[in-house]
């Protein structure tokens, strides 16, 4: 047994010795946590599979952490993150006055903690990544089981949650494990809806067309209550998301995202590239049943969890 004072000494010693232990330890980490500051060549491709495949068929089970399923490591599947967590990232544009007003109303629970040493040490990143509050004092829609919205579904799929793509003749069905959500990408030649006629919805309306080996998806008609990502960046009903999907090798799928939302941002926002690894069906299985899990956010479950969360924060 160790008393608290002695324990504190051990922490200090551990900190010093950790300088030695860090590099080795990080090498052993599973590719789940995003490491801000770590830069990988997101144009690289670690897939060594040379088998023939169809670049226009995205069907399959995909994960940004293929190592979790016993697949070869995929360094480019991790993000060049601006802060801890999973996000749109890239060079954050300026916000319009309306965008700034909505941005300030959002209180995320992720990123560098507001006023913390880490936040002060990363003054180079946008304010959105340096303002996290304890989740009990935040207002993340996710903590109320509200829908995440398309961009957040795509970007969060790096957090261990998998994604399934099913491609049929005239559309692609994309399913997301976390919150058990989905959207359709219609490739039948239809235009995106008239911007004044559509009913806004969380995942918008998506149409896709092939430009060579790139599927260019245009999505519009978003419900503006969603956050662009877990850092609380807002987006308006007028936002348009362009996704450029590619399947460059048998076991890789990638997307380059651009958000154009003049109501909220002063220029289009290009995200960092997101890359997935293909997971064989038998490797993504639980209890003998393969596929993504029904990982729903259940309001009553969330409410119970939030009681524990609030207790931890000392929230009365």
């Amino acid at each position, binding site marked *: 047994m160790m008393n608290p004072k002695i324990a504190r000494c051990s922490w200090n010693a551990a900190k010093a010795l950790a300088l030695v232990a860090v590099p080795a330890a990080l090498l052993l*980490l599973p590719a*789940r946590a995003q490491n801000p500051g770590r830069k990988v060549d997101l144009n690289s491709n670690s897939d060594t599979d040379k088998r023939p495949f169809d670049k226009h068929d995205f069907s399959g089970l995909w994960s940004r952490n293929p190592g979790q399923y016993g697949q070869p490591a995929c360094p480019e599947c991790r993000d060049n993150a601006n802060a801890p967590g999973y996000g749109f990232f890239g060079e954050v544009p300026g916000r319009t006055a309306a965008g700034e007003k909505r941005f300030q109303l959002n209180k995320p629970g992720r990123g560098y903690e507001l006023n913390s040493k880490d936040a002060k040490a990363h003054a180079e990143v946008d304010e959105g990544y340096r303002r996290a509050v304890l989740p009990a004092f935040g207002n993340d829609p996710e903590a109320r089981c509200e829908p995440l919205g398309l961009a957040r579904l795509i970007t969060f799929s790096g957090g261990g949650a998998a994604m399934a793509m099913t491609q049929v003749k005239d559309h692609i069905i994309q399913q997301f494990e976390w919150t058990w959500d989905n959207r359709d990408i219609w490739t039948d030649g239809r235009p995106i809806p008239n911007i004044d006629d559509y009913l806004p919805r969380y995942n918008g309306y998506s149409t896709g067309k092939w430009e060579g080996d790139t599927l260019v998806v245009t999505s519009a008609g978003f419900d503006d209550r969603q956050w662009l990502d877990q850092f609380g960046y807002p987006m308006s009903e007028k936002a348009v998301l362009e996704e450029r999907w590619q399947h460059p090798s048998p076991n890789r799928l990638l997307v380059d995202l651009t958000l154009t939302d003049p109501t909220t941002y002063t220029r289009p926002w290009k995200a960092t590239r997101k890359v997935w690894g293909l997971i064989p069906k038998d490797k993504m299985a639980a209890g003998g049943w393969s596929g993504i899990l029904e990982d729903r956010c259940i309001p009553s479950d969330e409410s119970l969890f939030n009681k524990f*969360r609030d207790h931890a924060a000392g929230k009365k």
Partner: protein
Amino acid sequence: MRNTITRTLALGAGLLLASASGWAHHGSAISYDTAHLWTTWGTVTEFNYLNPHPSMTWERTTKDGKVEHWVSELLTNPSMLVRAGWTKSRSNEALKPGTRVKLYVGTSRAGGFSGIIMKIENEKGESIVGERTNAVGVDMDGVPGGLQPTGNEELPK
């Protein structure tokens, strides 16, 4: 001396592993002092295998015989647990009320008997209901209050 160095080195590496993987699914880890894990034996009083993270209440007894009632969330969420073989029925059986377990805890930064559980061991020393086995903590078994935050942490205003 060698034991101390070995222990401290292991502690440092373990803490790093725990903290680096602590940016987990639901982002509540910043509510806890995950850089200073500690261990204790406790008895499960309630376990909830639910999204977004399982939760648990448990008791521990201090050296002077007082019983503390703790509330905790588990770091690992159900989808990760099930893929690690910890299904709902298996987990509920392993943590049914009355079960004695060794817990690796990061105390709530707001203090009190609240924490996040990074690792659980059964009485055989086996890691249960989790996918991480690399967490290391200081033994605070029986010490009143466990390891509480110092109060120097900057909490949000």
